């Protein structure tokens, strides 16, 4: 399969990218790792006049903690996030999601920014960013906009990024002590997109009750979303099997899956409940590592 014709630009710095995007807003596509965009180009589902390759742009590949946030450059690959020891120790939901994306070649080249900007309704990162209440920084010649993950993923393959903007950074709040998280994904075959993906993050207050809960779901609606009903059930409760069962059912109710080759609607709803329950149980076990 051969993409339609396009012009190709390989800018060296973010300023040059932003200038190109402001001049070509609407008919340019940004190329990061390529594992989302190239298939679209080959299927001719996308046929931009200009492809802007940011593979050699400096300053978009950092991983650093700053001002109470983990700041991840948009060009950081899934493989780097999966292999990062600090992330494995302190941002387990990020570590678990990164290592399960696609296959090794996809993780070697695919980037967190590319995946978020592509916004496949079954992709893993959005669920994680929603559960952790992360934000995404979009930059244009006019300046920066910081957008909450919960407002960023608008619809299937649609985000809040404006045509003249570049997604430059993902910011995940550093979890307070007493926080635990998990990512659970049901996939039919190795390397498949999720049938259901669930990211959860829980924080336990001094009284032993959950005082913060984040639950992000992917692949079971037109876009990944926050299971807000499950979250409000969890807050104020002592962690345990009964409240987790109720929250899992609330998440299933709030999901809007569609029937496809992965299965019918009823099956997917049941799997939302099952995988949400597993993710909550896994996170809770990490809240009490010695119990």
């Amino acid at each position, binding site marked *: *399969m*051969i*993409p*339609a*014709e*396009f*012009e*190709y630009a*390989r800018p060296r710095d973010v300023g040059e990218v932003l200038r190109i995007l402001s001049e070509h807003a609407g008919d340019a596509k940004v*190329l990061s790792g*390529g*594992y989302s965009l*190239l*298939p679209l*180009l*080959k299927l001719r589902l996308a046929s931009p006049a200009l*492809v802007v*390759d940011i*593979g050699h742009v400096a300053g978009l590949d950092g991983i650093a903690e700053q001002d109470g946030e983990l700041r991840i450059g948009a060009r950081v690959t899934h*493989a780097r996030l999966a292999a990062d020891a600090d992330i494995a120790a302190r941002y387990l939901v990020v570590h678990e999601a990164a290592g399960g994306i*696609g*296959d*090794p*070649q*996809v993780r*070697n*080249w695919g980037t967190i920014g590319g995946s978020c900007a592509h916004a496949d309704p079954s992709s893993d990162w959005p669920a994680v960013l929603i559960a952790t209440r992360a934000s995404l920084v979009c930059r244009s010649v006019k300046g920066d906009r910081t957008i909450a993950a919960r407002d960023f993923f608008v619809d299937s393959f649609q985000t809040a990024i404006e045509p003249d903007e570049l997604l430059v950074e993902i910011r995940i709040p550093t979890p307070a002590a007493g926080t635990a998280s998990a990512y659970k994904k049901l996939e039919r075959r*190795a*390397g498949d997109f999720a049938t259901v993906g669930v990211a959860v993050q829980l924080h336990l207050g001094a009284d032993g009750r959950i005082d913060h809960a984040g639950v992000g779901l992917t692949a079971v609606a037109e876009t990944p979303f926050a299971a807000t009903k499950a979250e409000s059930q969890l807050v104020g409760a002592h962690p345990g099997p009964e409240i987790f069962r109720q929250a899992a059912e609330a998440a299933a109710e709030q999901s809007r899956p569609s029937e496809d080759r992965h299965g019918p609607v009823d099956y997917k709803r049941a799997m939302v409940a099952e995988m949400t329950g597993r993710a909550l149980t896994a996170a809770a076990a990490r809240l009490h590592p010695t119990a």
Partner: protein
Amino acid sequence: MSTRHVTVTVNGETREADVEPRLLLVHLLRDMFMLTGTHVGCDTSNCGACTVIVDGRSAKSCTMLAAQADGATITTIEGMAAGAALHPLQQAFWDQHGLQCGFCTPGMIMEASWLLGQNPDPTDQEVREGIAGNLCRCTGYVNIVKAVQAAAGEMRAKQDAAAEPAAAR
């Protein structure tokens, strides 16, 4: 339509071409450089038959533009053997019957070479996860895993032998 001049180092040799921006790396390798050992299988980023090493990372060359690879160092299956001496992975795939039709083999060997670079002594499960992006429709993978393990052992033994004289001094 503009073309772009691309310079890459393939298997140690500098190669150049003028390409359309939409040309895929696999077609640069196969159709312009005549390195047809890299196969096009599914052409949809799934099967891994087109796997090559680009700047030290395994890549599906059907999912990369030739223009993206400009300036890169690339290794293909043709770069694995040293003259008539097969690479340990090639020898092990032969010895352990790690192939039947052979279509997936170049991609399997390239992915396995990347895997063993990351992890010289993998478990069987780690080998299976390492080749999760490469599909084989003949073998059921059992002999492929055996071949990768045999090659890993051979490569570790060679490494130890090479390190010994220095240690003895």
